[in-house]
């Protein structure tokens, strides 16, 4: 009995040590977020005050007002919301349609095309930076939404994910619908799509996040401040000599806030979206 008691106590001690260590790490992980929130509530001159501010200050709305009137950050937010939303919707359509074709049909050229998808998954996209810029110049698409949206719509990762998921839909289900006289589009939209809803949610979040945070490509094809997305706008704010740190921190916070709120509500789908396909061999 004393042995058992010692066992329980040892277990409790271990549990306490482990939880404390992990909690200490978690503080380090969350501290930057906390500091960002605090920093956005102080004027530029007090952000690096000594000792550091640990409680919210009074200047959040001054920073916000300054950011929206002195810079084009409001415009950048609107651009980002629009571009990321349109990209997500179109990307879902393109990727699910392609994934469906690869998962449920046998056709000439299938293996070659799927191999091409896999190869582009592994190639560094930086190679395409120069040619995409040249294409957009030739089309007169610099500073446009379509320049941001079109090139990565047929996302190899998304196609791969949808193919993997749709392979699980039983063929009998599709055949039955066809026998009942359903057209091919109807089979896709009424039978297949509803059964893969969780994967759709995961892919939607992945697409939205990818476009929302994309930096180097927009940096190349967006030349005028009116067309900037949030990351390009933030980088340009930071780049100017007279950086107003209060405004910069407020802008940084605003760029993360919508995503954080989404994350809190859709945590499960977020994790699935970011990891999808990762564990599958």
């Amino acid at each position, binding site marked *: 009995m004393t042995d058992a008691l010692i066992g329980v106590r040892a277990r409790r001690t271990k549990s306490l040590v482990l939880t404390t260590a*992990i909690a200490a790490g978690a503080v380090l992980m969350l501290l930057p977020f906390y500091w*960002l929130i605090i920093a956005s509530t102080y004027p530029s001159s007090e952000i690096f005050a000594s000792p550091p501010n640990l409680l919210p200050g009074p200047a959040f709305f001054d920073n916000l007002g300054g950011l929206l009137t002195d810079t084009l950050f409001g415009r950048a937010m609107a651009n980002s919301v629009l571009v990321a939303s349109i990209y997500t919707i179109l990307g879902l359509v393109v990727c699910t349609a392609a994934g469906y*074709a690869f998962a449920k049909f046998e056709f000439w050229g299938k293996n070659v095309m799927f191999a091409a998808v896999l190869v582009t998954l592994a190639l560094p996209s930086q190679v*395409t930076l120069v040619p995409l810029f040249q294409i957009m110049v030739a089309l007169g698409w610099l500073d446009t939404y379509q320049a941001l949206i079109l090139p990565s719509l047929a996302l190899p990762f998304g196609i791969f994910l949808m193919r993997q998921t749709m392979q699980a839909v039983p063929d009998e289900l599709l055949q039955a619908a066809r026998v009942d006289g359903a057209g091919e589009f109807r089979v896709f939209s009424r039978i297949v799509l509803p059964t893969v809803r969780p994967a759709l949610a995961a892919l939607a979040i992945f697409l939205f996040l990818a476009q929302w945070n994309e*930096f180097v490509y927009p940096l190349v094809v967006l030349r005028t401040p009116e067309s900037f997305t949030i*990351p*390009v706008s933030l980088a340009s704010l*930071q780049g100017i000599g007279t950086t107003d740190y209060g405004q910069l921190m407020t802008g940084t916070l605003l760029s993360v806030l919508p995503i954080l709120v989404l994350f809190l509500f859709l945590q499960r789908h977020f994790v699935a979206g970011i990891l999808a396909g990762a564990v599958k061999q």
Partner: protein
Amino acid sequence: MNSVLETPLAAPSTRPSDPTPPRRRRRRATGGHPRITPYLFLAPTILLFLAFKLYPYLSAFWTSLTSNIGGAITFVGADNYLRLLRDPLFYTALGNTGIILIVQVPLMLGLAVVLAVAFNSLLLKARAFFRMAYFVPIVMGLVAYGILFGALFNSGPGFVNQVLGSVGIGPIPWLIDPFWAKISIVIAMTWHYTGQSAIIYLAQLQSIPGELYEAAQVDGASAWQRFWNVTIPGLRPALLLTVILSTIGTLQLFDEPYVLTNGGPDNATLTVGMYLYQNGFRYFDFGYASAIGYALTLIIAVISLIQFRLFREKSPKEKKR
């Protein structure tokens, strides 16, 4: 989270046992659908792929064989590549990228394994909360967290230096010293990506059968032996994946150094990705930038292949899958 990941394996696609009887319409494939159907579903992908993937990759290769002087494009053969081989700045960029890779990837993945084991342990309280706390940095955009870390690691009165100063350390010249600038980037990347890798490992850990641990325990294996002989082999597929993905990602590193240090001080954090961007879009030397892109592709292909081989050779069992 697992529902998405596991569905593909959970229900292997089944062949229809009874082929559909011939339909009225002709030109049908064996599946009972018009032959053209899969091509219609693929049409947008094929068009986008040709225009924005295949053409750019081919075009970049052609561009890498040309030189553009004052708007006149001339074919120069392998000149750009030869210039690259003699370019000390390219080697600097390659070296910086290599150092960040060699320090950051093992550090991050090691931490991630430890975290995953902790997340999987019944001894840990509030597991769901901690998992979220470590995962949440990944949702922050690269530019946003670059700016945030730039402020936190401000070499003068930044928050980190103030905290360190309160225990008598520093001030450390985080972003203005060649050595510490690299460290800053490694710390920032580790903060951003570790939780993601940990969650990947956690998913894999949960697929290791509990009987393996019980059997090891019956055989008298210590916790440490169980970790090396059961946990690590069980994690191998996820380890392979994360090693390759983080290597590919790090070799293309751009956003963090661009925002945090702009490649400085004195090119100490100039990466291959940044060097490509500078040549392409600061000097508009498209030929040279494209050559850097293809050199990078080659490096990534070789390193990924080596890693793949190394991991595969150690685990012949995996081949059965």
